[in-house]
């Protein structure tokens, strides 16, 4: 087996068994990056110098016989919207093309405390707005399974980096599906935790009430391990929930016998490809074969989720992104007359088309005279959607749906049609609107491209999702397939 094909927990085992040092593992990651990055373009910034220091610190701690956290010494990647002290954090935007934060995001700090080796910052749709990672100001990330295709988005860089073997796991952020959809497109497990489970402090906000950080891993156990390291209350984030830390790997192997699974018919309707539907329903059958009970349910308000999303998310983003004005940091347009002109020229040139479109939409929704018709109504429908999920969870342990309507699409295929692009998130958005946790897990392949299946859970019941996903993975074995990208960093173990 090639080293870069290992999962994070397998790599961790090799470190602990001293088959590999962290320096060797990290060098292997950079060799792989050197070999494939030209074709994948997953990273905006590589942080080799710091990474090698982190790796040798791990090796020395191992030599001293210290008891180290599970993630220690393992190379990983961060989406470029999570602040890293002293390291460029661009959000995929020209606006922040030169922005070096003077502080660490809480997740960055927690990862550092866990001994993680950060190999770099990954590409993304500008300010996390997009479903293909084509909206980055710097580069278009390619899908390692087929480099003519998109890796999904907005956390496409984080997904591609793991799928291509450039990092063993990564963090993404998910506002409407930005972890789960790229996980589906790249054959990974990706989790959006319950809103409030992971601190947002230091995550450059897109839509504050929806954003949540979560992991990408090659299998469920990797995600469970990372979840354990990044979850927990943070006094710097008032929306983070005060709950004791959990070991998400505990109980992961307990099986699904007797579990009740709801299959909402609204998620299998128009717009979802037949192959995807069929494959997810196959997944349901596999669950039944393991002793779970699947029943069709209805979540009638879910069909409004996408509309609600494009009101609430754009409204919040119009406010969150107003601070990018060229006055204090980031890009400033040259040649302006007075501060108003500076603001206008900076924002006109600093933001890309999609970001401007959403700022305009959100500004409109919040405007006097329209607030009640849009934003306020959006909040009300949001409550309805949340209640429907809560009601469903009175009866079911989790809900099973497709993650994305199709497999990864061609680069450029949807970039001229924003609405078509927005439809990519039709299955994932309701989850953010409700605030509940969900994960995407590979359930099969269509023409050599991975298909993702979404498991949606109760508030703060990530454990059940991980347990159900683990059972599926063990039974199906789909997760053991890797994207084939030859050329370097190919050392076997």
């Amino acid at each position, binding site marked *: 087996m090639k080293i870069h094909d290992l999962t994070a927990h397998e790599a961790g085992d090799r470190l602990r068994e001293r088959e590999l040092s962290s320096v060797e593992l990290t060098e292997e990651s950079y060799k792989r990056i050197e070999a494939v990055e030209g074709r994948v373009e997953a990273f905006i910034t590589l942080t080799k110098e710091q990474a090698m220091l982190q790796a040798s610190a791990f090796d020395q701690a191992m030599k001293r016989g210290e008891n180290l956290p599970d993630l220690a010494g393992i190379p990983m990647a961060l989406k470029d919207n999570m602040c890293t002290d002293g390291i460029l954090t661009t959000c995929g935007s020209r606006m922040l093309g030169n922005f070096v*934060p003077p502080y660490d995001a809480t997740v960055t700090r927690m990862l550092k405390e866990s001994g993680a080796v950060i190999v770099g910052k990954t590409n993304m749709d500008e300010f996390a707005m997009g479903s293909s990672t084509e909206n980055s100001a710097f580069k278009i990330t390619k899908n390692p399974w087929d480099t003519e295709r998109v890796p999904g988005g907005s956390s496409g860089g984080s997904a591609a980096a793991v799928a291509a073997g450039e990092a063993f796991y990564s963090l993404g952020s998910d506002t409407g599906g930005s972890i789960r959809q790229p996980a589906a497109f790249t054959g990974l497990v990706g989790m959006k935790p319950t809103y409030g489970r992971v601190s947002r402090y230091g995550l450059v*906000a897109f839509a504050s009430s929806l954003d949540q950080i979560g992991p990408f891993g090659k299998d469920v156990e990797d995600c469970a391990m990372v979840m354990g390291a990044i979850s927990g209350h943070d006094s710097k984030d*008032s929306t983070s929930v005060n709950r004791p830390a959990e070991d998400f790997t505990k109980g992961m192997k307990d099986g699904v016998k007797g579990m009740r699974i709801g299959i909402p018919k609204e998620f299998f309707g128009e717009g979802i490809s037949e192959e995807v539907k069929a494959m997810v329903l196959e997944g349901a059958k596999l669950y039944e074969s393991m002793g779970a009970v699947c029943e069709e349910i209805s979540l009638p308000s879910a069909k409004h989720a996408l509309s609600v999303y494009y009101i609430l998310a754009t409204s919040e983003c*119009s406010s969150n992104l*107003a601070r990018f004005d060229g006055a204090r940091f980031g890009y400033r347009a040259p040649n302006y007359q007075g501060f108003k002109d500076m603001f206008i020229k900076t924002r006109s040139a600093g933001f890309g088309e999609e970001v401007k479109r959403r700022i305009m939409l959100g500004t409109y929704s*919040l405007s006097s005279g329209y607030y009640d018709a849009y934003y306020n109504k959006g909040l009300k429908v949001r409550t309805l959607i949340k209640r429907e999920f809560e009601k469903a969870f009175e009866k079911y342990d989790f809900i099973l749906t497709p993650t994305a309507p199709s497999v990864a699409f061609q680069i450029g295929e949807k970039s001229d049609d924003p609405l078509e692009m927005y439809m990519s998130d039709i299955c994932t958005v309701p989850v953010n609107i409700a605030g509940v946790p969900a994960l995407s897990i590979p359930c099969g392949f269509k023409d050599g491209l991975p298909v993702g299946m979404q498991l949606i859970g109760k508030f703060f019941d990530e454990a059940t999702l991980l347990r159900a996903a683990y059972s599926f993975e063990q039974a199906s074995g789909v997760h053991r397939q890797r994207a084939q990208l030859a050329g370097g960093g190919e050392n076997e173990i």
Partner: protein
Amino acid sequence: MKYRTLVGLEIHAELLTESKMFCTCSAAFGGDVNTHCCPICIGLPGTLPVINKRAIEFAIMAGLSANCKIAGKSKMDRKNYFYPDLPKAFQISQYDMPLCTDGYLEIETESGTKKIGIERIHMEEDTGKSLHTEDGSSLLNYNRCGVPLIEIVSRPDMAGADEATAFLDKLKGILEYIEVSDVKMEQGSLRCDVNVNVVTDDGRKTEIAELKNLNSFKAAAKAIEYETKRHIKALEAGENTLKETRRWDDAKSVTVSMRSKEYAHDYRYFPEPDLVEMEISGEWIERIRKELPELPQAKKDRFMKTYEIPEYDAGVIVSSKSLAAFYEEAVKLSGDAKLASNFMMTEILRRLKDMDSDISNMPFGASDFADLLKFVISGTVSNNMAKKVFREMAETGKKAEKIIEEKGMKQITDESAIEEIVDRVISENPQSVEDYRNGKDRAVGFLVGQAMKASKGKAAPQTVNRMVREKLDK
């Protein structure tokens, strides 16, 4: 035609918390430029606000002191607008769920006590400060950015400049009393906008003008008077005024249009998604209520009762918390409440007015003042002499005892010494003695004055008075 002016006030007061509203930076006034700053208060990407609980408590204290209802549930909202001194491009404020509502303050007017309604008191964060240089560039100081503020919105219950001034004085006194703000207009910790319009008795009314850039209570009063005249003039001409924001030009004593409401900002308020709703329990409110110090009205009543001083004097003394504390301390140490209040009402207040300052800037403290009073009580110096000693104390900061000694101001109480002076004065002024015997009583005053003069003011006046009468009546 009768005209009635309606004045409403919007007052911003910076709260005296240690730290800012949403981060742990110092909220102190001043400091080197951009030193009270952190990634949160300068709005760096990714940062999040966390509410300063103390600021909420201060706002509730203000609300309780202004007889407001305190909300059981409250939330913060974003007020969006672009300006370089507002780093997030939104101000975290409160829109439709303010902390405090429906309060009032009572003011004294010519026709008696009047209640001025308070619509709401809400929390918000202050902005930074822009400094525009001569070459057209702007410099920004974010030390003030994120300092907690309360905005107090009155109802349009004031009938003119006098009532507005009375309301401002009252409010300032209360905020100072409960120590939630240092209410210094010159440092910007108290700021005031005014809404004015005029109605006629036949139901016509002008559009409301919002007045800004009022840097003192005096400026507010002058601006209200100016606007009242402008509005009445419009009504007399059968016209109306514009609904607009106007800027007070203190040098020219006029208001100038800034922007009409058609161009008013659309602030696009919406609930701050980075903060959760606040739950304010009755228990918490009661704890805060207990923390409240004695308010001016209660103190005034107590002073009148305990110290038996006139209502007017009590009102003046309690108008400032530090003045009232100074008085109480002096009474405690000297034991003479009336003497202390008389002295304060005359000498001290005159002095403070001349200095345009407050009691904390006097070069001596309450115990020094009490020492002076004790010299009066013991008869060591006369009342008049004590005033001279006081002036010296106020100028030099020297102790009363030292001044009295240095200047030989000690009162002569020795009867034989006084008798000698009185005898001499009587023998030198036979005409006055004659006048007195002819029934001109005021000759006594003249002779007493002469005797006091001869003693260089040091003779005990009561003794001189008694002795002159005794001698004349012989």
